[in-house]
């Protein structure tokens, strides 16, 4: 939806007298909205510059978008010619370095699910700490909650509706941001393996949604949200907690 948003923003900003250029991730949206200048790129949603940690490739994309500012007239859409590079042979499958304990979980036992969820979070801690050290940053922190609070808050939704830990935003948004932090914790931990290869978005998604207890917890939370009358909770349950690409996992 962001390509739609940047298309509209470009119209308004340019009308006010500032030249714009933009990256487009959804070409049909840009074709319909016709912003002044756009570079369509064939990359994953969420990766408009193509690939992480490849300054040379990112600069090629960036310069291609910026050079449109020198076009004599518009609207103009051009296509970036290359797919995002992958950092290893395509036939080498990424494997998560984190060896999560495998034990069948009784999905009808909320306490057992919460215990398994907490155990998994603890197991990941050393990898998350390594990731933070390696990256010198973390993207966790949106919810404003500590890790232990995130576990308790999300886990409580399995069989109840907990109190809102924040006063400034709705319970639904608190849950949404806590889940964002939870996923950041897992994804950053999983991507921290030694070596140069970085997992693709698809590999990390398949691992998280297919193999973790956390994903099972989120499916249970989704069911809880769908039972609520609150409009935002319904939205969370329908499309905001589980990506559409894994909603049937």
């Amino acid at each position, binding site marked *: 939806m962001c390509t739609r*948003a940047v298309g509209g923003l470009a119209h*308004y900003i340019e009308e006010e007298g500032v030249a714009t250029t933009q990256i487009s991730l959804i070409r049909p949206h840009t074709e319909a909205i016709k912003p002044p200048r756009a570079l369509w790129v*064939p990359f994953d949603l969420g990766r408009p510059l193509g690939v992480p940690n490849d300054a040379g490739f990112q600069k090629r994309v960036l310069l291609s978008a910026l050079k449109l500012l020198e076009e004599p007239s518009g609207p103009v859409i051009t296509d970036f010619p290359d797919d995002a590079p992958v950092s290893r042979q395509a036939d080498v499958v990424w494997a998560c370095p984190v060896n999560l304990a495998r034990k069948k979980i009784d999905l009808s036992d909320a306490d057992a699910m919460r215990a398994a969820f907490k155990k998994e979070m603890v197991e990941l801690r050393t990898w998350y700490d390594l990731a933070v050290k390696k990256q010198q940053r973390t993207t966790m922190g949106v919810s404003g909650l500590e890790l232990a609070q995130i576990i308790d808050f999300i886990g409580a939704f399995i069989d109840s509706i907990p109190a809102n830990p924040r006063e400034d935003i709705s319970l639904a948004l608190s849950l949404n941001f806590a889940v964002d932090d939870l996923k950041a914790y897992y994804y950053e931990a999983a991507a921290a393996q030694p070596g140069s290869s970085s997992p693709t978005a698809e590999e990390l998604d398949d691992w998280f949604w297919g193999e973790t207890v956390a994903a099972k917890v989120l499916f249970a939370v989704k069911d809880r949200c769908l039972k609520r009358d609150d409009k935002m909770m319904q939205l969370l349950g329908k499309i905001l907690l589980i990506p559409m690409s894994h909603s049937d996992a």
Partner: protein
Amino acid sequence: MARLEKMPEPQRSHIANTRLPAFDTYPWVDGPALNMRRIAIVSTAGLHRRDDRPFTFEPGDNYRIIPGDTAANDLIMSHVSTNFDRSGFQQDWNIVFPLDRLHELCDEGHIGSVARFHYSFMGAMDPKDLEQSARKLAGLLKDDTVDGALLVPV
């Protein structure tokens, strides 16, 4: 993957059937050569400083200011959607907010300068609801003598 025809259902239909705003004007602002331009990033990734408020759906709560001296570890994302990849941003902020790359292009003489302030919206909104904020933001860009706004979606 962002080739619509390669997306899995139901995401492909969801995107293909999105209601799009129609514009009957084609604004166009001329300017100097790229190596004379001052560039600002306008993201729709729901980015903000760690100590800033997360994005909400409150009317008027549309964008956040990102000072040009913001450190990578101080930029986080509170976009409401889960239907795009965040692992790229987790590994390298430049993939959605290419501030380091802009400075390099400036050092290499490709662009004139980098703005003092950058901005982020949260793009899961109807652009029509962002109009007033976008027009005000254009004034802020001009105050910073920006003559090239780079809009970056996720």
